[in-house]
């Protein structure tokens, strides 16, 4: 129910945005994420972006995962 999937923002018009989800284009509301910019990925839940995905944090988490998996 609280499912949210990454979607790439292609264009923005007011509170609406066109996003790409694995090649499928959809119109969504970005009313809950006013800071979003074209080129960002958002977490899409029932037609609304509920957060902008933080790419820096994603890279940091992957770095942490690699460090932990190597640590003895």
């Amino acid at each position: 129910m609280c499912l949210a999937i990454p979607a790439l923002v292609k264009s923005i018009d007011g509170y609406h945005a066109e996003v790409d989800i694995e090649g499928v284009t959809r119109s969504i509301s970005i009313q809950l994420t006013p800071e979003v910019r074209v080129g960002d990925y958002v977490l899409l839940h029932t037609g609304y972006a509920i957060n902008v995905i933080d790419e820096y944090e994603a890279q940091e988490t992957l770095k942490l995962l690699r460090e932990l998996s190597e640590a003895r």
Partner: protein
Amino acid sequence: MKFVDEFRDPELARKLLDRIHRRSTRPTRLMEFCGGHTVAIFKHGIRQLLPPNIEMLSGPGCPVCVTASADLDRAIALSRLPEVIITSFGDMIRVPGSYSSLQKAKAEGGDIRVVYSAQDALHIARDNPDKSVIFIGIGFETTAPTIAATILQAEQEGINNYYVLSLHKVCPPIMKTILDLGEVRLNGIICPGHVSAIIGSYPYQFIPDNYNIACVVSGFEPLDILLCVDMLVNQIESEQYDVEIAYRRGVKPEGNQPALKLMDSVFEIGDADWRGIGVVPSSGLSLREKYRRFDAATNFDITPEPSREAKGCICGSILRGVSTPQDCQLFRTSCTPDHPVGPCMVSSEGSCATYYHYGDADGG
């Protein structure tokens, strides 16, 4: 980066699992609160891959499953009123109430429509000005801001035939209730990822502070969940309890402030009826006075019969983490996804449906 495959790397997962096996020494009982986590854990076979000293329990984090029969009965009664269109997320349609379901009410002639988004419900209201369009508002903090947004939009556009039956629930109070009931002893909680995308991680701080239970917010990919378990094991082994985030790309400690503000402008905290638990004070969301004209609970006159639970169904104790689906005599016999008796078998995220589709920890 597409934020999916990167977090499914099998080699990294294997190494992380080795690390968890090496470091986890104590009997450890973890609860995943969110139904989405239950599905992800089963789908990726994570339960079977963890060391035997780590036990995983599912919690009450499926909004469809925790909707009380009495509330479903109200939704069904609303669908029988003249000139009404009921709109709802798909899973709710099949959940049995005390005497019927929305699906049966639809077969009997009710105008009941499945929508993907509350936006769709608002469109239906716009297109049908001579009908009352009622949205059955279920969901936690993830969903509630989206419903709030449609109410504000209806107000701005002067749409006067849009109503919401707010059955929304909030998570931290029910976590407290589960802990206070004391029926299950937990060492750690996998906190919900997308609820936390809205509320942040601070609202869980009372759990480590008052109950000495580890808390980590997790994402939904296998590496997210394994990282979360590793962080929980760290806290439990060192007896240093705190709230941490393993899903930093999606969750900030302070949450999504614009969404919280919007939700707060439309809803106020109220009591909510949880299936299997009962009425929990301050665990739900009601429409504020200013938006009462959009409130289906106060604008329609319905008197549903007293509610009752299906005989033999133990969804209530499954939702509290006290029982598992295999404890239920109806599981896989008279209760199946095609013929669900209780809500945990209806919802794709319900524990019973998940056990049914992906098998139990023994591969059953």
